[in-house]
Structure formats: C-alpha cells, structure tokens
C-alpha cells in the first residue's frame, strides 16, 4: 500500500478524489492525519491509524489517541482485512478527472471511465489511452491524450516534411514559406515556355532565352537596335556595313581620346619628374661650410703643422691641416694646406667625389682673401689629403691682414657631387 501518490504530467490526483464510493472514505480515514490510511495499524480495540502517524503519536504518549487504551509499538497490530479492503478498493482511473483552478478536481467528460482496484490503478494508468504525453515533434503542442496522438501527428504543425523539389527537411508550418523561396522548384520560362528549375532562370533569361528582348551587341559603337534574341543573327547580317562604319567612327574617337589622355598623363609625369629632380639638386647643392678659427697662431706656427677638429660631411669625418712653412723643400716659405678624409671609417670600395675650396680669410679686406678650388675623389691614392702645397706665401699670410688678434680664419665649403661603390672580387 505504498503507492498513494501518482504523478501526472501537471498534477497529482489525491486518492480521496478517485475513490468511487465516497462514503467509504470516513471508514478508512486515519484519525490523526485525516487521510486514507496508509499502512494500517490498530490498537487492541481496533482503532486504525497510518503506521507513521501512530508511531509519531506514541513518541509523545503511550496510549491510543481514540480510546486512550495503553499502547506501544509492540502492541500495534496489522489488519489484513483493512489491507485487503484498501488494495481492492474501487477507484476511477486518474484520467477520469481534470484539475480546474480554484475549483479543484472535477470529472473530465473526455476522460477515462474505467473503474479498477487501487492496487491495479498504476498499471492501468501507465497504459491508459486517456493519459497525456508530449507531442514527439514539439513541446509547443503541449500534452495530448494518447488516444488522440495519431490524429494529432497527422496534422501537427511541427510534423516533419521534405521539400519535394530540393529534398531539404522542414516542419509542416515552414513548408509553405519555403516553397515560395525554393530555387529547385520546376518552372517554365514565361517567354519561351522552356522547362527549367527556378535557380537557372536568370541565366536563361540573360544568355539563352530566344524570346527575351536584347540590345544589339554593337550598342557601344552606337547601334540602338533592340530585338528578340532569336533575331540577333539576321540583324547582324543585315547591318554588317552599318556596324563597321559605326565601329570605325567609334574607335577613331576612342583612339583620339586615349591619345589626349595619354599625353596629358605624360605631361603630368614629366612635371613630377622635373619637380623631383629640382628638389634633389637643391638638396645635393647645399654644400657644407666650415669655418675654422685658429687662435694663438704665433704660438701654434712654431709646431710647423696645424690641424683642425674633425667635422662630419656626408656621413664621414674630415679635417683640414696646414704646414706653416711648407711640407717639403720645394714648398718652403709657403703655406701647404690640405683637406683630409679620415680613411679609418670609409668602407672598402666606396669613393666620394667632392668639389670644395679652402680659403684664408682676409680680415682686413675680404676681397683679398685667398681661395683655392678643388675637385677630386676621395680616398686619395697614395695619400690622405688633397690641397695646395703652395697655397699662399707664409710672409703674405702673416703680414697682410689675414691675422688679427693672433687669430687666423680658415674656411672651407664642401659639396659632395657623387658617391660610388666599386665592388671588386673578393680575394677569397
């Protein structure tokens, strides 16, 4: 008698509802929980209670709640009669009822009318044709009586169907929309009645259909004729000379226009090249000027050779040096001045062609300055510097306004004309 609860899809029908003879409920009711007795136990005077209820009561007080006779767990007895009575109790199938909000369980006119014994009710309800199940295609359909399920499946909006044109799977309520869109559907061309599938129709219309109106292929050359595709050949034949003339004038115009365009383009490019050249020349023309101030000349000249600080031009280091009384017997009495490249830094194979001058500035009268121009390629073969060994007489330099406050001004302006790499085969 353990099966007093049965779960239905949405609710549980209480046992008091399903019992056919409602009068019998009072006789089979537990005096403690007021429900139909579950696992009946009785006192010696025959008062019946659910086993759970009476056990709970006995924990508090060891007497029968009804007659107050002395009672404990050992004194409780079963009642086979009541047990059998309960098992064989006539009940309605739970699908005889339906639940109505704020009213409760009422008889379902569409429900099951079967009357069974309580012990067989679960078995019956499992197979009852009036029970409810979810539609196998979609929960959206809600629960449906098993009895009506086959009929439902035949018209369920979610039942699967296959498109007969493209074989794709759909639910029944999708198929109408799909048929409007399916591009595998068979159609006939509205002009030539040729059969085809929908997705080929555009291609057919644009390239094949003899009855579609098309433009003469020579429309770019000026033929404005239109006709059905099937008449194309006859049009071409008829209009051969006309088309040739149209083409000739069309292409003449085209070529003239292209020429114009081309020469404009060329001019534009020329201008750009000139501009670039100009800006390049401007850049390379910008020669570097260096002014070297030689202080305490009278003291320094005693060394016989004076050398400037190094300065950087074109990424390399340079310096000026001069001999105050020549650098050889031949140049004795002259100043020998040279521009030097610091060759330690220059990579093998690289050469620089320079235009430069070396100038002794006359501080009394600028026009009397002595300027020597050179053009040469560094590095110098067999030496480091290039200049003039007899640039100016030492006596002139020391007396004619070149030195003021014991200070001499030497200037140079260097312009790199060319940078070359000569790659020689390596020794290895």
């Amino acid at each position, binding site marked *: 008698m353990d099966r007093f609860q049965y779960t239905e899809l949405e609710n549980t029908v209480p046992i008091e509802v399903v019992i056919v003879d409602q009068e019998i409920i009072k006789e089979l009711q537990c*005096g*403690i*929980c*007021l*429900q139909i007795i579950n696992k009946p136990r009785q006192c010696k005077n025959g008062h019946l209670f659910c086993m759970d*209820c009476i056990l*709970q*009561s006995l*924990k*508090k*007080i060891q*007497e029968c*709640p*009804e007659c*107050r006779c002395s009672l404990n767990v050992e004194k409780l007895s079963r009642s086979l009669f009541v047990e059998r009575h309960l098992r064989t109790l006539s009940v309605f199938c739970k699908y005889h009822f339906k639940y109505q909000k704020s009213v409760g369980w009422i008889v379902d006119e569409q429900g099951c009318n079967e009357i069974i014994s309580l012990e067989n009710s679960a078995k019956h309800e499992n197979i009852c044709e009036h029970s409810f199940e979810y539609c196998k295609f979609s929960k959206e359909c809600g629960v449906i009586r098993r009895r009506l399920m086959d009929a439902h499946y035949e018209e369920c909006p979610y039942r699967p169907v296959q498109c007969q044109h493209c074989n794709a799977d759909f639910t029944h309520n999708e198929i109408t929309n799909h048929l409007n869109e399916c591009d595998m559907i068979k159609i006939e061309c509205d002009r030539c009645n040729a059969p085809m599938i929908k997705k080929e129709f555009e291609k057919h219309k644009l390239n094949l259909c003899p009855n579609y109106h098309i433009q003469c292929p020579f429309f770019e050359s000026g033929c404005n004729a239109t006709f059905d595709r099937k008449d194309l050949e006859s049009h071409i034949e008829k209009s051969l000379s006309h088309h040739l003339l149209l083409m000739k004038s069309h292409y003449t115009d085209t070529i003239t226009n292209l020429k114009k365009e081309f020469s404009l383009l060329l001019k534009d490019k020329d201008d750009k090249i000139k501009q670039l050249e100009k800006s390049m020349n401007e850049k390379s023309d910008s020669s570097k000027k260096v002014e070297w101030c030689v202080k305490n000349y009278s003291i320094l000249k005693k060394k016989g050779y004076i050398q400037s600080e190094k300065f950087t031009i074109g990424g390399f280091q340079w310096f000026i040096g001069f001999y105050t009384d020549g650098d050889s017997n031949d140049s004795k009495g002259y100043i020998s001045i040279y521009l030097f490249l610091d060759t330690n830094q220059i990579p093998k194979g690289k050469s620089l062609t320079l235009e430069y001058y070396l100038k002794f500035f006359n501080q009394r009268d600028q026009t009397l300055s002595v300027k020597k121009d050179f053009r040469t390629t560094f590095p110098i073969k067999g030496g480091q510097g290039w200049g003039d060994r007899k640039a100016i007489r030492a006596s002139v330099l020391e007396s004619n306004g070149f030195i003021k406050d014991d200070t001499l001004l030497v200037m140079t302006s260097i312009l790199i004309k060319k940078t070359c790499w000569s790659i020689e085969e390596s020794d290895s």
Partner: protein
Amino acid sequence: MNSLPKRIIKETERLVKEPAPGISATPNEENLRYFNVVITGPVDSPFQGNVSHHKSGGVFNLELFLTDDYPMSAPKVRFLTKIYHPNIDKLGRICLDILKDKWSPALQIRTVLLSIQALLSAPNPDDPLANDVAEHWKSNEKDAIQTAKEWTRLYAA
C-alpha cells in the same frame, strides 16, 4: 512559510463549510495556523446573554493557534473577551484537561471548541484556575452566577 499539512487544510475547510452550532472559527489570512474564534454562550448558562432582548447570546471572542507540532500537540486557545468563570482566568487562559495532558491527536479544533462551549455550560469550581471566582462559586453559587451574567452583559454583548 511551511506548507500547511493536509490535516489542517481539511479541518479548516470543514469548520468553514459545516460550522458547529454556536461556534465559528476563521483562519487569519496571513497565518493560516491562527484562528479567530467566536463562541456563543450556551442557552441556560450565565453566558447566554440577554434573552429578553432577543439576542442569541453572549458573544465570546477567542484566539486559537496551531503549533508546528500540531496535531501531536494541543492547540493554544485563550479567551479574548473578559469572562467570569471558575476555569478561566483574567488573562483568558482556560483550564481544560484536553488542552493539556489529556490532549490526543485524534482530537480536532472542532472537538476542542465544543469542549470549551460545554465548559461554559458546566463550570467546574473543583478544578479551578481563577481561585477567587471558584471560591465565589462554591460559597454562593447564585451570587456568582449573577456576577457571571453581569459580566456577560458588560463584556460579551
């Protein structure tokens, strides 16, 4: 809130649907374990009320509360209306065996209220709760009944 045991639902339904004569019990909407109870004083008792004015009787308000342990424990019942009765004290507490050691889970709200109603018909000064009232009852029952009637008129009209 704990769900209400089926037994309490069943009892409440029956109390409302088939009330016992002279007794009404209405559950509080916010707490279904708390009942407002009205008991009409039994005919031929000092708590009957003024019959000559065609009143049905004295009207006594009580409160009844079902503990979590119910029905394994008795409900708690108390008079809210002042009453002159040897088994009911100033605070409305009731001396009734079934509300104490003689409680049985086979008893119900209905049986408890019927017992209280019966207690009004048959005061028992030998098992008093209000000693002075019981004394009064035993020494001069007539006078005590007169006081009870007076109280009924004053408080339970």
